[in-house]
């Protein structure tokens, strides 16, 4: 009964979405406000409807209604209550429904925020975003219906996948989904600008802001996912160039390219077609990423054929490509740029080089993801593992990081060569000296040294950028350094938020180089009292114990002491959790974490664990904490850049007033 209500809500939401597409399109074409407003009301009602559908599903999970198949799949009587809420996105059907909720939330938010400021675009914004909404609601209603009844009512459910019972997994998926669905909004605005032909500066401002919001969430999702992998998956790393990871990394790359090249259009009115293309590409990669993960295409071509969902996605992506391409070509002459590139040594050219590098990384990643699929179609499937991505993308990232430091020194129109040289000579000298020192200290890894050099130069230039601007305020206004820095962020959120993001990337880059090139590991069978040495550390194994945990957990825990220079620095307890109902083991590492390095210990779960012996795998991970610290700086920078700017709002309000009075 309750399940029927949930299903009915999905159906009604599907109807309102389809109506919104039609009404908005008709109203927009015929300049009929009544139809447009009716479409808006349909959008307004879609959000409560999807919310109701999700609430219904959560209620069914909460009350253990195992007559519904999805509930039986993701929960059980002994699942803790808070996990019953997160079980909403613990499986395919539920997470697609959740996706629908977030999409309708984003669409409603964009209606609320931009209804008056972007009035002329709104009919088509509604039409385009409702098209996406209708597609996903159709999938939820007819292909992946979470309310389907079970063939027979189970006595108890299967419980949530153990991997998903970690706090990181509770926050990570919603962030990632918010990032993904968020890109629908900038796409809708871009398409609305194309369709309506209102291709002035207004749409690009709105689109940029919404892209930044989606990008913030996607970045957060990626970072949290890395942290979750490091804490739970038990292989000593945070990123494996896994197809599923790549699927969410690709839209992030395209979004990053857009956020940079959009500045050329704002400042110089150039590359309008290119920016339009990047917005469209980002959106298509979001749908594509969802498609390859949901359909199982990345695992094997054969799983694709097993479910219908793949074909629906395939059809939808094709339709959206044709739709987008048609309007892009149709409006080509309106997208002509009035200005020309004046120099290859200009800010414009630097942004273009940035785009070129990012798109190369994107293409390499795309090829790496799709190559196994393509080869499987024609014969033997080929595995594309980490080494490929490291070899192809590594050098591209190094150049990109270097460019990130140098680009802010370039000027619009044309840079003065001598000035550029003067500005970069000192950082280059300092970085080179540092490399010589590192060589003298015995570090001989050439790739790592090149990487460190690039990151160092970029770091110095970025910090100098802050310093020069702060010093200018300090001398001219007598402010102290903290006030001066704070004022920079307040006065120009976009620029200094952006530079803070760069700083976050630099800090992360140091961490990535540390783990990538200097990770040490060893695996050993140990009995009570055994010690092993790794790096500067010594580790003593004190035996294991077994006990019953919460839920149906059986915990095998090892007791390990870590010594540094003969002194005990920390006792840790890496453990293996076995969920007895499913028999699925989880290897939970424990670690001693410092800014310099992590001493990371895990029990090898395929070897036996007895009271006095176990096989341990020990990693010494240099600079891993820099990755998380950089991630935090990155997110703060993005939040500053995306925060509504009161001054910009005032400018927009004024121009709107003028626009209204001249109408």
């Amino acid at each position, binding site marked *: 009964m309750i399940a029927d209500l949930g299903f009915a809500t999905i159906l009604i939401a599907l109807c309102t979405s389809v109506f919104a597409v039609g009404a908005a399109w008709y109203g927009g074409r015929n300049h009929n406000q009544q139809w447009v407003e009716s479409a808006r009301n349909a959008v307004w009602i879609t959000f409560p409807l999807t919310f109701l559908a999700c609430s219904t599903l959560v209620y069914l999970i909460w009350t253990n209604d195992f007559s519904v198949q999805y509930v039986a799949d993701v929960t059980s009587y002994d699942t803790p209550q808070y996990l019953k809420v997160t079980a909403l996105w613990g499986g395919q059907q539920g997470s697609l429904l959740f996706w629908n909720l977030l999409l309708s939330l984003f669409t409603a938010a964009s209606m609320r925020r931009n209804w008056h400021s972007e009035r002329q675009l709104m009919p088509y914004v509604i039409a385009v975003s409702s098209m996406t909404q209708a597609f996903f609601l159709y999938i939820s209603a007819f292909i992946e219906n979470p309310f389907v009844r079970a063939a027979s009512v189970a006595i108890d459910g299967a419980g949530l996948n153990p991997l998903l019972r970690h706090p990181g997994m509770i926050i990570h998926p919603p962030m990632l989904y918010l990032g993904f669905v968020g890109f629908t909004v900038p796409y809708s605005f871009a398409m609305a600008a194309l369709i309506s032909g209102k291709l002035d500066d207004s749409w690009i401002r709105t689109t940029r802001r919404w892209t930044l919001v989606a990008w913030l969430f996607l970045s957060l999702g990626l970072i949290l996912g890395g942290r979750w992998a490091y804490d739970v998956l038990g292989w000593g790393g945070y990123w494996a160039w896994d197809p599923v990871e790549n699927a969410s990394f690709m839209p992030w790359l395209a979004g990053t390219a857009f956020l940079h090249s959009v500045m050329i259009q704002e400042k110089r009115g150039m590359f309008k077609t290119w920016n339009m293309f990047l917005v469209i590409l980002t959106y298509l990669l979001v749908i594509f990423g969802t498609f390859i993960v949901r359909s199982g295409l990345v695992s094997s071509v054969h799983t694709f054929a097993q479910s219908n969902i793949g074909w629906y996605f395939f059809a939808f992506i094709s339709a959206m490509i044709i739709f987008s391409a048609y309007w892009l070509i149709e409006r080509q002459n309106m997208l002509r740029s009035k200005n020309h590139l*004046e120099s290859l040594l200009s800010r414009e050219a630097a942004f*273009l080089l940035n785009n070129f590098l990012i798109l190369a990384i994107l293409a390499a990643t795309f090829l790496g993801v799709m190559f196994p699929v393509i080869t499987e179609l024609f014969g033997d499937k080929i595995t594309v593992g980490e080494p490929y991505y490291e070899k*192809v993308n590594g050098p591209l990232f190094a150049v990109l990081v270097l460019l990130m430091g140098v680009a802010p020194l370039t000027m619009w129109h044309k840079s*003065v060569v001598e000035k550029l040289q003067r500005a970069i000579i000192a950082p280059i000298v300092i970085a080179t000296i540092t490399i010589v020192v590192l060589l003298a200290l015995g570090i001989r890894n050439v790739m790592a040294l090149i990487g460190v050099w690039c990151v160092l130069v970029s770091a110095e230039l970025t910090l100098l950028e802050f310093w020069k601007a702060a010093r200018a305020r300090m001398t001219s206004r007598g402010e102290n350094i903290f006030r001066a820095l704070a004022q920079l962020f307040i006065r120009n959120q976009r620029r200094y938020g952006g530079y803070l993001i760069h700083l976050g990337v630099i800090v992360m880059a140091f961490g990535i180089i540390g783990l990538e090139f200097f990770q040490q590991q060893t695996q050993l069978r140990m009995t009570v009292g055994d010690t092993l040495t790794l790096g500067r550390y010594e580790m003593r194994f004190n035996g294991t114990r077994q006990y019953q945990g919460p839920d149906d957990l059986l915990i095998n825990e090892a007791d390990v002491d870590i010594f540094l220079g003969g002194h005990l620095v920390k006792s840790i307890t890496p453990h293996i959790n076995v969920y007895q109902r499913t028999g699925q083991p989880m290897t939970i590492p424990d670690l001693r974490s410092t800014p310099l390095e992590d001493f990371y210990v895990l029990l090898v779960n395929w070897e036996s664990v007895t009271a006095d012996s176990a096989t341990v795998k020990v990693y010494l991970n240099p600079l891993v904490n820099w990755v998380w610290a950089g991630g935090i700086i990155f997110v703060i920078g993005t939040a500053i850049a995306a925060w509504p700017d009161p001054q910009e709002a005032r400018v927009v309000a004024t121009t709107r007033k003028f626009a209204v009075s001249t109408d």
Partner: protein
Amino acid sequence: MQALNLRFTHHILQITFLLVALFFTASVAFAQDIVTDDEVNEVAHGLFCPVCESEPLDTCPTQACIDWREEIRVQLSEGQTQEQIYAMFRARYGDRVLAEPPVDGINLILWFTIPVALIVGGYLFTRYLHGISKPTMVTQSTSATLGTTQTATTSDDEYVRRIEEELRNQ
């Protein structure tokens, strides 16, 4: 059906490995070399078993992977090099077992598409940039050069002024 097939293959693989492993273990039981887990893992890191999805052999807990690692241990103890072991696995199970696709055959597409695209793209890109950049007139460029020599000496001051002006305009 697919899942069944997969499981069946998995079992066959397991049994084969077990037999092979048993055979080798017996034959080298008296070998003197003790191969450490680290040596095995180093080799295993470059391999993927055909059954497990995106999980390198050195961290994969499935029985098939345990057996493969045992086989690597046996081969190492017989004095085989990493290359020889990879070649053996490749000959037996195809390219898919290698984490890093070998640079031959169809894989050339994978390895060379991006570098070639970078070179060709880079060339076209610079040509395009040259094409769309507005040729500066001689007189302008002369005055620009003159201007730069003057500003170069006071560039820092000018930079500071620029920032101040930008901040004031905000």
